[in-house]
């Protein structure tokens, strides 16, 4: 069942959520950086930017996550597990961000292994998404099977702006329905015409996305192009920082490190890692299968648009375009994979 809500009432709902849970929403700081930050009042919500500088990924898949602490004393060894995750709400992300969670959910629940640190936190996360009215030049979500400025994949509740400052609110999960039922006084029932209005919104918004890639055709080219001379030159501008991977809603690679603080205390931590980094694949003894920068550069695209598709039948990318914007040398993922030969 679809509902309608005004922008003012969205803020009321947001305040009600803030009172009950930890709410992360786009917030702008003094340096004009827009990040998902913990809100204390709905007035802090910055809804004008299309995309935040980094994704909301780090609210569920922490950049550094302590698995446990080990403490030794005269009574023996005790292992301290992390605290149970709290209920959180990610408010105001975009369909590409929400779909990013859907993509990595499958990864962290792959085959017979469940990553409980991620999964437990995800189970307590409610994702409220806002459809995109003004896609930017870096957006390319429509290249993907499920991608669209109004796509609901990964969202519990989707808000689509319509005429007259109203939003169409559609719940897709129980968590999303609960947000509406708990705050029912702020919502009114939507009519058929508004569902049609959403269709028009979708058409208009999608028309603003200038680039649509034929990913199936590109996928076919990737395997044979593994040793192609193309990679010899295309990687040259890349400075091999990890900005693209750390702002990506789907990059999930990590490293696990153990640290002893002293003889009695230590911890095990999982931290994000990046395939762009030289030490990502460096093994004990110094052997490194991806020793040169070309190989590391190639890996990022091969993983996203070839290997991951083999394993999961979808790309490890949602077309948000953050990597293009964050890249210090403006490398465009679309151009790189389109140029493969």
């Amino acid at each position, binding site marked *: 069942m679809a509902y309608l809500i005004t922008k003012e009432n969205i803020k009321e709902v947001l305040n009600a959520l803030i009172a009950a849970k930890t709410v992360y929403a786009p917030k702008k*700081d003094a*340096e*004009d*950086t827009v*990040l998902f930050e913990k809100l204390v009042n709905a007035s802090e919500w910055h809804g004008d930017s299309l995309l935040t*500088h*980094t994704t909301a990924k780090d609210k569920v898949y922490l*950049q*550094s996550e302590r698995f446990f602490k080990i403490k030794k004393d005269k009574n023996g060894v005790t292992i301290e597990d992390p605290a149970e995750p709290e209920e959180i709400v990610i408010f105001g992300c975009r369909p590409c961000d929400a779909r990013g969670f859907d993509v990595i959910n499958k990864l962290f629940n792959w085959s017979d292994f469940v990553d409980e640190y991620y999964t437990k936190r995800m189970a307590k996360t409610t994702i409220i998404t806002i459809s995109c009215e003004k896609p930017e*030049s*870096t957006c390319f979500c429509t290249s993907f099977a499920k991608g669209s400025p109004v796509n609901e994949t990964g969202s519990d509740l989707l808000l689509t702006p319509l005429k007259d400052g109203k939003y169409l609110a559609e719940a897709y999960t129980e968590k999303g329905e609960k947000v509406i039922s708990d705050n029912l006084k702020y919502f009114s029932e939507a009519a058929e015409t508004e569902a049609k209005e959403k269709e028009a919104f979708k058409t208009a918004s999608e028309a603003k996305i200038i680039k649509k890639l034929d990913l199936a055709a590109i996928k076919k080219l990737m395997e044979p192009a593994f040793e192609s001379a193309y990679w010899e*030159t295309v990687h*040259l*501008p890349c*400075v*091999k*920082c*990890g*900005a693209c*991977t*750390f*702002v990506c809603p789907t990059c999930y690679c990590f*490293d696990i*490190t153990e*640290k002893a603080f002293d003889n009695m205390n230590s911890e095990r*931590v999982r*931290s*994000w*890692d*990046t395939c762009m*980094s*030289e*030490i990502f694949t460096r093994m004990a003894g110094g052997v490194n299968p991806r020793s040169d920068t070309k190989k590391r550069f190639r890996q990022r695209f091969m993983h996203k648009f070839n290997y991951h598709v083999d394993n999961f039948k979808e790309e490890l990318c949602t077309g948000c375009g953050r990597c*293009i*914007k*964050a890249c*210090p*040398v*403006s*490398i*465009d993922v*679309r*151009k790189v994979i389109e140029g493969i030969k």
Partner: protein
Amino acid sequence: MDKELQELIKKLLTEKKAEWAIGYEKAYDEFSTRPAFIIDPADTARLIFNKYCINNLGLYLTKLKKNKLAVVCKGCDIATVFELIREKQFKRENVAIIGVACEGVLDKRTNKLLEKCENCQVKQPKGADFTLGNAKNSEKPKSYADVVEFEKKSSKEKLEFWNRQFEKCIRCYACRNVCPVCYCPDCFALRSMPEYLSKHVDADKNKLFHMIRMQHVFGRCTDCKACDTACPVNIPLSMLTKKLAKDAKELFNYESGADTDARPPLSTYDEGDSESDIM
């Protein structure tokens, strides 16, 4: 200027005065450019120069293992090339510096003129092998007013400001990797045995990383702002690099990239040296 630039590079490559040329080309929209690497003289048509050519191409001189390179440099980027020559990363005769007159570059994120471009003394490049275009240098000297203003804050205020900045840091190392003088093949931040810096990302460890990096580039950093403009979360690293430049100037009367034979302040000792701490 683009046509002249293309012709010049075509000539250098054809006459084998350079094996490779590094310039700029258009990136994904009208506000963005990216470094272009030209090997084939027939491939120069994509080269451009405009107010969005923000990257410091001196960065690639230590990355490409080539004997003869031609590199397009804004006046400020030439300081970087000179600094790298001073550090004996390559020989002066192996790099053809193509200086381009520049009226200032704009940050693609904000579309605003970079702070370093105000009061620029090298709009018209100095020390280049070839110079294209004409620009008038600023008559006013470089201003450190913003650093002086920040220095007046209390320790607590400074700490609060930087804690907030380093809370944002995602340790992607874009700042380090775009830094032309951060060319160590094995950065302390990536060492695991012994581990100088934990992979655990939090404000304290991020701060430690940035402080160590700043100490490492003191007297070498030319305040080119590459780290600042590369930061995906807009940490104003240029405040730190500008402070380094100011301290080098005030404490040691030293300017990085000005002289290819100079000895930087931290690798020399003189009885008259300032006793003050940098930073």
